[in-house]
């Protein structure tokens, strides 16, 4: 199934490629951008527009994404959003494809590669595309096995919608497959309700005497239609998507068409919605986007790609369901987030409010104004301020004098736990700081757009596309920030003063420096940004920062060997 999907995706990609530039133009028109702008951009931009033609399998592999839900919902919201989104699509892919052209051809499809695949190979499957795929698979199986669609659905669901797996298993042992799916075998026997018969006998559920209309699955357990309806409605109400025959010893599943036949429309619609959601839950080829209130499903047709993007541009890790976290590993992320949840507040408080006893290194909280501390554990008496012996404060007062030797001695004697705490806080503060920076920087683009609207009112000759590059650069900046944030988690897990760590810190430093430079420049006033020389500097810096980011990811990918 995977293979099929991928190749068909590729095929579609091939087909749509030539038409891409025009798609591009369309979208440019939509954002009121003059076409001149894209063409007469700086060198950097030209590279990008070249690459634009080569990338975006996202759109082709999934034509519905463009036209259906996401854009529809967006356009109803606010035009800026649409613009943002589209520019996102345009720019985000560029650096990655750049890189895949020179040098990311290593065979081990790990972090970096998968990261670059984020943009190039992950298809975003929205509700409609999902439904269509479901429909296609069902129809194909139904035709191949000569069964009804609703039976094909049951069979597919029993194997997590892995069509190829189902077919090969079915050829091997049809009986086993049918039993597991709760389907009568041979499947040639129609699973449709045995024709409704009106009979005088008693219904074994309601025990009413006939004449009643009876129905049964092919197992022959027949009940009156009223009881069926009540039974099915109750099951649907409970959110059950695998309804089995009421007879306790029978394991036949009720196919969808029977639910449609016997229940009212509302109930059936509810049932279909549950079944559709179950498709995502059961299928191994798509997942729910974990972002709050997103609710989109995303296809993971490329299983080597760990980080994927939903149609709303949320990027996440398929494995641990958190934010895309390169270069950190899933286990590092899980451990880190847990540690942050558990410890951060405590640690912050500890570092602000406690000292370690200079003798036994237990952590001590000051519980009064007096600076004369007595360690409860070892009874050591010392001064809270200078950590020196309290005795020295009575016999010979030296607390106010700065003694470098003493400071050094007290530092040497610091407890390991305090050192570990400081180490953790070092990484934690930087991690949080990059997260905060990113949140602020995400607004740069919006601010630039607002400012531009103001400027346009005053100077109508200004063109919308003049601030386009700000959005693109901001996107790159945010990507760097995310990576930077996770580098601190990665670094926290690396052994100190190892050669890997040295190299890593070097790469990190490089990325951090370039990111900060870009950030600083982008935060200047829009009037400044509109100057040609500033614009080219922004573009150059964005490219440099992206380079650093990819170099770092690649370095980690290659095991941090110099």
């Amino acid at each position, binding site marked *: 199934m995977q293979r099929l999907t991928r190749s068909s995706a590729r095929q579609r990609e091939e087909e749509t490629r030539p038409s891409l530039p025009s798609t591009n133009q369309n979208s440019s028109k939509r954002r009121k951008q003059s076409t001149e702008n894209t063409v007469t951009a700086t060198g950097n931009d030209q590279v990008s527009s070249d690459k634009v033609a080569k990338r975006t399998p996202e759109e082709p592999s999934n034509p519905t994404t463009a036209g259906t839900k996401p854009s529809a919902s967006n356009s109803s919201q606010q035009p800026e959003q649409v613009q943002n989104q589209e520019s996102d699509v345009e720019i985000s892919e560029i650096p990655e494809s750049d890189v895949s052209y020179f040098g990311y051809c290593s065979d081990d499809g790990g972090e970096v590669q998968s990261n670059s695949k984020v943009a190039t190979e992950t298809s975003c499957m929205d509700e409609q595309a999902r439904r269509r795929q479901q429909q296609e698979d069902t129809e194909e199986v139904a035709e191949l096995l000569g069964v009804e669609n609703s039976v094909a659905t049951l069979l597919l669901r029993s194997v997590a919608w892995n069509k190829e797996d189902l077919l090969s298993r079915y050829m091997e042992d049809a009986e086993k497959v049918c039993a597991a799916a709760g389907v009568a075998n041979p499947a040639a026997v129609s699973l449709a309700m045995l024709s409704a018969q009106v009979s005088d006998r008693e219904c*074994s*559920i*309601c*025990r*009413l005497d006939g004449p009643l209309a009876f129905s049964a699955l092919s197992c022959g357990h027949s009940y009156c239609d009223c*009881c069926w309806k*009540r*039974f099915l409605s*109750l*099951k649907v109400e*409970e*959110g*059950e998507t695998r309804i*089995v025959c*009421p*007879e*306790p*010893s*029978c*394991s036949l599943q009720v196919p969808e068409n029977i639910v449609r036949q016997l229940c009212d429309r509302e109930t059936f619609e509810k049932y279909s919605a549950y079944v559709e959601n179950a498709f995502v839950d059961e299928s191994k080829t798509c997942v729910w986007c974990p972002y709050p209130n997103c609710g989109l499903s995303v296809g993971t047709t490329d299983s080597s790609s760990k980080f994927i993007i939903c149609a709303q541009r949320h990027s996440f890790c398929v494995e641990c369901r958190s934010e895309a976290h390169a270069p950190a590993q899933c286990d590092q992320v899980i451990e880190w987030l847990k540690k942050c949840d558990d410890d951060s507040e405590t640690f912050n408080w500890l570092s602000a409010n406690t000292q370690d006893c200079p003798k036994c290194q237990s952590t001590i909280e000051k519980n009064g104004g007096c600076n004369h501390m007595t360690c409860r554990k070892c009874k050591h008496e010392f001064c809270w301020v200078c950590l020196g012996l309290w005795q020295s404060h009575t016999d010979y007062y030296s607390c106010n004098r700065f003694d470098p030797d003493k400071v050094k001695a007290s530092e040497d004697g610091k407890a390991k736990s305090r050192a570990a705490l400081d180490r953790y806080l070092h990484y934690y503060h930087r991690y949080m700081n990059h997260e905060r920076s990113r949140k602020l920087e995400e607004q740069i683009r919006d601010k630039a757009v607002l400012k531009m609207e103001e400027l346009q009112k005053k100077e109508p000759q200004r063109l919308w596309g003049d601030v386009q590059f700000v959005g693109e650069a901001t996107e790159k900046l945010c990507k760097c920030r995310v990576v930077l944030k996770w580098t601190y988690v990665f670094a926290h897990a690396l052994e100190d003063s190892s050669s890997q760590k040295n190299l890593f810190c070097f790469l990190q430093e490089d990325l951090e420096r370039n990111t900060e430079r870009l950030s600083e420049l982008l935060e200047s006033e829009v009037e400044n940004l509109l100057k040609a020389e500033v614009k080219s500097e922004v573009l150059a810096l964005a490219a440099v920062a992206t380079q650093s980011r990819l170099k770092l990811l690649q370095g980690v990918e290659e095991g941090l060997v110099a």
Partner: protein
Amino acid sequence: MSEQAVLLLRKQLKEVTRCPVEGFSAGLADDSNVFEWNVSIMGPPDTQYEGGFFNALMTFPQDYPNNPPTVRFTSDIWHPNVYPDGRVCISILHAPGNDPNGYEKACERWSPIHTVETIMLSIISMLSSPNDESPANIDAAKEWREDKEEYRRKVARCVRKSQENL
């Protein structure tokens, strides 16, 4: 909905009184209320419960048979699958949808096709073979597993008590 339940319960009551099933007897707790039944169960032969006559109250919901009745022993009974307050905990009496983890097999769960008779047979079978995997009375389950002698003594006490109350 409840009209159907009334009809169905009346019918089942008639059947149970006309041709009684070995091992239990059943009747309405209050003649004006068809939703509450008194049942008495004979301790199954060749088990520790043999000789006992255990009374229980069976309460049907208004939407019976879509949902199962509850069964609560009014006699003292010491059993891993009976809560200390007398409520019987067996899978077929669990309201549908109460088992999201799929722990119970479909055939072991409530289905509208169950009747008073099938429920009573399940309870009798529960008395003969306790299930200590998901116990309602943890102490009883522990004893049943680890201290058979004490378990037997407690059950014998319940049996005696039930005979005295006859």
